């Protein structure tokens, strides 16, 4: 399981295509598997790409949307763990 303060970055083998800024398709060039992200998922992906940790992302989401910090953390961790499972992101050793 990923820790809240660990850095996670998109894998170089992943091609992201945003659709009208509301959703995105991820294509892993190694596995040739497609994945979709909804608007929230895309927002989290962009923040991961900017170098934010899951904790920082959770804080930002709970601050911007009507959602408790606990729920935000749970949602972010769930998505990030799925991304790790599908090899779409890499956990960085910092």
């Amino acid at each position: 399981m990923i820790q809240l303060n660990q850095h996670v970055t998109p894998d170089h083998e992943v091609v992201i295509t945003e659709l009208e800024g509301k959703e995105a398709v991820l294509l892993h060039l190694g596995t040739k598997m497609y994945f979709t992200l909804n608007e929230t998922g895309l927002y989290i992906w962009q923040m991961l790409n900017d170098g934010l940790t899951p904790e920082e992302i959770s804080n930002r989401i709970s601050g911007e949307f009507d959602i408790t910090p606990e729920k935000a953390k749970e949602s972010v961790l769930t998505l990030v763990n799925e991304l790790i499972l599908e090899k779409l992101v890499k956990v960085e050793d910092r």
Partner: protein
Amino acid sequence: MNHREMLIELTNRCNLSCHHCLDRRHSGDGDLNIEIFERILQNAREHGFDHISFTGGEPTLHPRFTELLTMVSEAGYDFGFVTNGWNFTRIYEKLLPHSNKLTGITFSLDGAREGTHDRLRGRDSYRRVMQAVSICVIKGIPFTFNTAITSHNRGELYEIAGLAMKLGSRGIRFGHLISTPRIVFENMDISPVDRRQTEIITCQLQKTFSIPVSMAPGYYTTELFPCAPLKMQEININWRGNITMCCNLSGHGEDVGNDDIAGNLSEMSFSEAYGRLIHINRKFQKDKCALHDKGNFKDSDYFPCWYCLNYFRKVAWLSNYPENPWSSLVW
């Protein structure tokens, strides 16, 4: 009546400069005149044409591309286009209102690996294609791939077909190169013997993969008139408004033969130019039959595109490159 297709070169401009492309297809600045395009739409159907495939250059670069799509759709033609995919994230939304007339998009894919593709087509072009097909998959837009077989990618044909299948393509079509000085200079083409070997591999791939794997016309065949242009099921219209025999004969520049050009649509009606094309085609067929029946065919003449390039005097310059395996086969 059989379905007939028009290949319409919307522009000779291109955002890429692929190593294996004809120079005049990516270094130009000409766009098909929209009034000519209107006349094509008005008159082609009475000659049995019901499908349009946009080519180029990069067809999406035509400054009025979106408007052309609407015109085609409203005129009731089915359509598709060949693209390098670079602009697809920008233009795909324009396609969606016409999806009932859009038969499919063909993306150029020249390598299974990013490095192979980008070596021929330029940095990041592979990822642009991948973005384009991602959109197609999500939006339900049918797509296929075209691959030009070169000395760089001939070892990846199996991988390319596999990639196409995994990505959700409806098919993959391999094709031989049309010689250009740059292709010769960079040793990208392969010999006649090697071409036939790749055709054997392609046949094997047809049995291996669940999607259609095919060879574009131009492969070795003893059939004298094997392709849609020679059967008059397909015509080419270049960006200047010329009706011509075949897209593979266009884009070779001004200093080669131009007997494949039937007429310009700014100077004559579609019917008149089309009538001239029929005449050119009949003469071509008669000449080819005569040469064949006299036993004057070289083995290389069974590559039909090679035969046409010679017949229409597009490859005389190859004689200046005696080290090239095709040079001695020019007539």
